[in-house]
Structure formats: structure tokens, C-alpha cells
């Protein structure tokens, strides 16, 4: 096993310079998934860039009409933020169900986004909220829609020299809904989870039912257009690609995805 190396930049500028010089560096923050991957030998990276000390990436505030959440905001900070509680209660609900208190203290929203797991707990919320991801590199900043951020299983449009610096969430109209279906009541990885917003338009994000988090645009369109729940469920089933794994079955995920859609519609 080759040795691990860790760089600890003192500023965002220094971090971006390091990354530009060596794009093989893996940016890390809370490390809640990195440690697991290293232990199991599934994380091939050996060189790491520790962002944890970068104050520029912390903080939750309002920017224009949008809520801006710094990439290093932990789940605990999100849960405790009055702004998030008021504007995106479904994100608070999702954050509460990530791991246990220790994980919530270390895990970050930016890490959840960059890690790109289809089982990332907050990702359906960002999909349903129509969030934007703020990326920065030495050559500048770009803000991209969360829809389309992921290109395939654990891959995104983020280039190796870019960092996720913030997540922007527009002001949401309508009722928000969230449910995680885990393997147990605490300390569980999701078998499936759904976030949804019911306003003049309907938006639905769903996780663990495909190679990436999925924005269920067709099911949402059926519901927005006054279609029946049966048609919406059929549309949803055509949009997801659930599989069998050690945690659940594709059949279960499909059935429960449809059930969750119905529950969301009934409860909002």
C-alpha cells in the first residue's frame, strides 16, 4: 500500500492553485465516506486536499433571492440554521436522517454533492428544489443547474481542477415533502428516498433508484397538468432504473417509489 499524502491549503485561492497544479488531488472535507472507501480499498486516490479549514466555504446566507449554502456547511449547521428551516425544511429533514450525530457533525453538503453517490441523502432535495451548484477553479466561477450535474454513476460535470464552493437554492413556492426509506430507523443507508415540492408546478427528486439521483420530470408534469396519480406513477416507473443490491431489490424500489409518490400527493 502506497503512503497517503495530505495537503492543507490555508485559503481557497491556495486550494485552487494546488488543484490546478495537480488535478489528481482528491478534495476532502468531512471524510465520512472517504474513510470507508480507504478502509475497503474502494478509494484508489492516494493524494488528498483537505478543505476543512477553509472559512470561505462555510456559512449559510441569502444571496439575492436564493439561499446560498457554503459547501462546507455540515448537516448539523443545516439542521440548526433558521434560514434553512424557514426556506427548505425538506433539507433539514433529510439532514436529520444522515448517519448519527457524529456523521452529521462532520459530513458536509458540498461533500454529499461532490461524492456523487446515487444514495446521497440530500441529493433528491436539491433536485426537487431546482438547486444550482457553484463551481470554482483558478480560471473562474460557473454556476450550473443541479439537474444535469451528474453524467453517470458517480460522475459529474465538475472538472478535476474545480471545487464545489456553494449550493444555491431558489425561493420555493408550495409545500415541501421528504421521506427516506432506510434499512432501519437510524444509521441507515437509503434504499430509496423522495423529495418533492407541490406549488403551481410540481418537482420531484428521487434517490437510490438509478445510477444518479433522478429528477422525475415526467411524473411531475403529469401531476402539474392535473393528470391522475395512476398516470403519474406509470410515468415515474418509466423514469427510474432501480436495481437489486445487498440492501434491497429493484422490484421493491419500484413499488415503493410509486407508493411514495402517492403518499406525497395525498399528504400535500
Amino acid at each position, binding site marked *: *500500500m502506497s503512503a497517503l499524502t495530505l495537503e492543507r491549503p490555508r485559503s481557497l485561492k491556495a486550494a485552487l492553485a494546488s488543484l490546478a497544479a495537480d488535478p489528481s488531488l482528491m478534495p476532502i472535507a468531512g471524510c465520512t465516506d472517504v474513510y*470507508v472507501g480507504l478502509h*475497503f480499498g474502494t478509494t484508489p486516490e492516494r493524494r488528498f486536499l483537505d478543505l476543512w479549514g477553509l472559512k470561505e466555504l462555510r456559512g449559510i446566507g441569502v444571496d439575492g433571492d436564493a439561499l446560498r449554502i457554503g459547501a462546507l456547511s455540515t448537516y448539523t449547521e443545516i439542521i440548526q440554521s433558521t434560514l434553512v428551516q424557514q426556506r427548505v425544511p425538506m433539507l433539514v429533514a433529510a439532514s436529520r436522517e444522515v448517519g448519527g450525530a457524529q456523521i452529521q457533525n462532520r459530513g458536509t453538503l458540498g461533500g454529499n454533492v461532490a461524492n456523487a453517490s446515487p444514495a446521497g441523502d440530500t441529493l433528491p432535495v436539491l433536485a426537487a428544489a431546482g438547486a444550482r451548484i457553484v463551481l470554482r477553479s483558478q480560471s473562474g466561477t460557473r454556476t450550473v443547474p443541479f439537474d444535469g450535474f451528474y453524467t453517470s454513476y458517480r460522475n459529474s460535470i465538475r472538472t478535476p481542477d474545480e471545487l464545489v464552493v456553494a449550493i444555491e437554492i431558489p425561493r420555493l413556492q408550495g409545500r415541501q415533502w421528504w421521506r427516506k*426509506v432506510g*434499512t*432501519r*430507523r*437510524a*444509521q*441507515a*443507508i437509503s434504499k430509496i428516498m423522495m423529495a418533492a415540492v407541490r406549488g403551481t408546478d410540481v418537482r420531484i427528486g428521487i434517490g437510490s433508484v438509478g445510477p444518479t439521483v433522478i429528477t422525475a420530470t415526467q411524473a411531475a408534469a403529469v401531476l402539474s397538468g392535473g393528470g391522475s396519480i395512476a398516470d403519474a406513477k406509470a410515468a415515474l416507473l418509466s423514469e427510474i432504473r432501480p436495481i437489486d443490491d*445487498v*440492501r*434491497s*431489490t429493484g*422490484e*421493491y424500489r419500484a*413499488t*415503493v417509489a410509486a*407508493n*411514495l409518490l*402517492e*403518499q406525497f400527493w395525498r399528504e400535500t
Partner: protein
Amino acid sequence: MRRKDGDAKVTGAAKYIDDLTFPGMLYGATVRSSIPRGTITARHISLPDGYTVADHRDIPGPNYVALIDPDQPCLAVDEIRHVAEPLLLVAHADKDALLHLDTRISIETRNGTPTYDPEASDVCFKKIAIDKGDLDAGFKAADVIVDGEYRTAHQEQLYIETNGVIAVPGDGRMTVYGSMQCPYYVHRALVVLLALPPDKVRVVQTETGGGFGGKEEYPSILACHAAILARKAGRPVKMIYDRVEDLLATTKRHPSIVRHRTGLTRDGRLTAMDIDVIMDGGAYATLSAVVLSRGVIHAAGPYRCDHIRIRGRAMMTHTPPNGAFRGFGAPQTLFAIEAHIDRIAEQLQIDPVRLREQNALRPGDTTATGQQLGRDASALAVLRDAVKRSRFHQKRKAWAGTNRGIGLSLFLHGSGFTGGGEVKLASKASLELTPRGARILVASTEIGQGTRTMHAQIVADALGLPYDAIDVHEADTAFVPDSGPTVASRTCMIVGKLLERCARDMRRRLGTLTPAQYYKKHGAFTVTSQYEPPPGLQWSDETYAGDAYGSYAWGCNVVELEVDPVTFDVTPLNVTAVAEIGKAIHPMMAIGQIEGGTAQGIGYALTEEVVMKDGRMANAQLTNYIIPTPLDAAPMDVGLLERPYAHGPFGAKGVGEMPIDGPAPAVINALRHCGFDIRSIPATPERLMRARLHHGFSKAGT
């Protein structure tokens, strides 16, 4: 009553195996098979200096792990029977040097065809037949015959501390320290493997973070591995499994298939029970014969019936060996009979409590093996108490047709080794006088269940001394006699009784003197007592008839639960657990045993699933092997009943294993009340969904 092990554990002073180091110590690792069945054709090892490598040729004695049958090699010669088969051992002073050994060691194999279905296996480890009365006559007398097939899966013990040992060689001796339940099992395995006289081998139990049977037989092979390396290197060797290796390689509960054919009169009296039990033993016999034995003896449940036939088989499959786990075969067969009894009640349209009341074993009745029960037979008492406490009938009626269900189970559990086992063990316990009281010398281990505390209480009471005047020696074979293994709910009833006898002997010898006075005048002395069967106890291994156990503890569980119609998640709302255990020596610890066993039983019923893929556990992580957290375990109402057993210490019977016998069938019966026809566990949401999708719902309104 303060726990003897409490202060050291709470303050962190207690030393577990990984807390210990020895000068010059190396770390050991195991190179395992990666295929479920095959033959080794070549081994290529390219390691630089500094490594110690050992294989089967480094074993001085016979190459097997001594337990019951000499069939399990300590290190493979050429045959591979499971994916975790140990092939080579490697040691190095730097623990990190043992990572990624697979890049430097390659094993060539010729693959064989594995068998995973015990019914398709052509190797049988053990067959047992129990016959009582005349089965044909029993079926002739029946108005109704009910058939049923029930299945249970692997379950992992999931002690918090993984398996680990340190072997220290020297001067023609071998000393092994480790996390274990049975120091003398490890001692025997080492004596055989190393071909050493017994007095040259010493085994010391270090503070142990849980066992549940998972450290009954497994530490023997691990101790042998460490000792082989230590002998070859001439240095101490530490081997500690990480969680993944512990889950992949160590024993699990035997999966089972149990088939019932039951004859009854129209009003619900049992006339005939025909029971077929199949246990999946995994790759080697290990303890399968005795797990099967306890399983078949409990297979007819706590019921009286004149005509019974039970057939049991333990079969070989190509997965790591299955082994001891709290309950030891009984949870499997009691799951089957208790789920079956509810199906019978349903078919006869008799209330499930009434059906059980009618057939429950009473004092003077005989069990399947013909054992006549004493006055402490308490099936009716626990059943009635649990039904009353839980308001079973009101809830059963009120919840009909909803997504809430209530179900119950009635069970018994034999205390101590089965049949003639205790006579063969001939266990010993000793008590040594000290200036302030007495010191207990037993090989029984404290594994979190309270051995030291409970033994000290028994001795203190029998000696008439305060609890604090009693010390407990660590379980070290150089000092303590062989009290038998810490298994089979025998530590209180059997070993506790030996200690009670020692204490009474010591009391007589002290006369009117206090320990301090006697010690000053005459010095120390030690009294020892050895197991003697209670008068009249008889057992035949040939006919499998007689007194299977000295006594039985009795239990009844009522489980209340709710099924989420969206996700098929099951929420246990409440569990009522009533146990009759003779005498609770330490009521709080006894209740703790019952609560812990019940939670473990809820996990067995609902979430704990060993996902086997090509003979390998595919979910060998705490993240994916789902034990209940406190949020998943239900609130519990525990009731203790005491009907003293004449030959237990102060009347005590066994308590450790029984609590895991009842929750699974009670859960499945509660799910049946909700309309789900489930006959195998774990009843995961995925299985409940299939039951709903493919079989529909059997009652209206849900």
C-alpha cells in the same frame, strides 16, 4: 448490586485483547481461499525478509481443530470447502506490512462445483431420530391434518469486540490470551494441534466484548493459527480480525428448513406430530451435531402429544461452517412450531391462546423424548401472564382488519448440556479461602452477561458473607479448574450450583470462625466440587429418549406491531416477554438478558439478513448487516416468574438463551394477523411486499 466487572469497564481500565502487547510481538494475518470449493494446485509466495509464513506443514500434531469430529483442518492441505478456508498464515512486525498480501501471494486452484442447498447435499454430518408412541395411531385418531413448511436463515452473532488472540511461545510452552467463551475448548485444541502435554499449554481469557455463541468454538481455530505462527517465529503473535474478516469467516446461526405434519381432533387436541428438521451445517461438522440435537429436542415445542416422530439432519454445504449462537438450534425449530400452531388455530378456527392452553405441557406430562416434567413446568403460567399483561384478546379483536397486528409464541428452553452432556463434561468448580472471604475459581467466562457478579452472589449467600468479600479469579487454565464451556444456559444452573456446594462445604469447615480468623489460624484452603447428575436423571444417546435436560425455563412473548402500507416497514410497538426461570439471582441482569435477547430476536425476525453470493457474505459490513438500533427495538414489558428447580442454585434455571426463542414466531404471527402469510425469516420489507403483491391480502379493510 454492583457488577464485579462494572468499574473497570466503565472507567476504561478493563483490558481487552487489542489493549495488550508483548515484547517482540508480531502481527498475524490469514490468507484465505477466494473460491467456495476446489483444490489447491500451486502456491506462489514472494515475500521479502521479515515475514514469517506458515502452512499446514508447520503443524506439529494432527492438522485438525479438535472439537467433536476431527474434520476441520486448521490450515488447508489441498482441499477447499468454503470461501474463507484458511490456506496460509503470515506474520510481520509491522501491521501495515500485512495489507495487500494478495499482490505477493497467489494461490492456484482447480474449481469444484459448490452446493449451497442443504437438501441437495450428499454429505450428512448427523442424523437424529426421536420416536414417541405410535405415529400412525396418532394420525388415525386425528380429524384434521395440517401441514406446514418453515424456513430460517443465517444470523450473525455480532458481538461488539471482534475475534482476537495473542499467542506467546517459550520454553516448550504455549500461552494464548484472547477473547473467548470457553478457555478449555481452546486449551484442548492447542494441546492436540501442538502435540504438547496439557500442562505446557495455558489459555487466558481477556476481557471479552460479547460472544452470543460466536466465541464458543471459533476462538479455537484462531488460537491455533496464532500459535502456529508464534511457534515458527519464536515470538508472540497477535491476530485480531477486523469486522469484515470476522463477518466473512466466523460462524453464523444454522439456516433451517422445518416441515410439520400435525394431526388434531376437531376441538384442537394434538394427536400426532411428524416433524422433519434440516440444518445447514456449512463446510465442516464443528458443532452441527449438537446444534441439531437441541433443535430436534425442542422441535415439538412446549406441547403434549402421545405420538411424535422427529427426524433431523445436519447437512454439509460450501459456506463457512455454521456454529453456536444463543439458542443453539432451538430458535429455528421453535420458530417453526410456533408459526405452525397459529396456522393450525387459523384452520381450526380456534383462538391461538386457547389452542396452546389446551395442549401445553403441564407438570407430570412427558416431552417428545419421554421426559416427565416436574412441578416447575410453567407453560400455562407464562402464557396466561403474558396474555393478561398484554391485553392480547382485546387488541386482537380491535386491530382485526387494520395494519396493526398482535401475535404470540410459547416456548421452553432446556438448561445445560443436552442428554448425557453434563455427565461427560464432569465440570469442576473451586473456592479458595482468602483473608477477607473467598475467591471463586471457575473457567466460566464473563462475556457481558454477568457471570462474575452472579457467581459471587451465590457464593456470598451460601457462605453467609457480604458480596464484596468474594473475589473472582480470571479464567486462566493455569489456575482454574475445567468448569465446562460458557454456553447452553449452564453457567448459573450448573456451575452456580457447583459453587453453592463449594460454599456450603467451606462454611462447614470454617465452623464458627470468620474467614479472617480461620485464615490467620490455619492458612488458606480450597474446596472443589464436581458435577453429579441429579438422582433419577436418565438419557440414552441410542434411542434419544429420556431426560434431555435437568430442567427447562419457560417463556411467552406477545409482539404488537404495525406495517407501513407505503414501505412495508414493520414497527414493533411493544413486546411482552414473560419468563419463568426458577429464581432470578440478579433480577436486573436477568431482565437485561431478556431484553437483549428479545431485541436480538426482533432482528432475527425482521432485518438481519446474511446476503450470500456464491458462498460468500456479500453484506459483510455493519452498514449493510442490519441489527436493530434502540430506535428499531420495541418497548418491552418483562415479567419474571419463579418456580424453583430443586437442583439449581437457590432454585435457578437457565436464562441466557431462551429470550431469543420467542420473538421471531411472535412477529410472524402478528404479521399473519395483519394479513401477511410469511413462513420464512427474516421478514424484510422486500419479502412482505412480495407476499402482498403475489398473494394478496387475506382480510378486508387493509
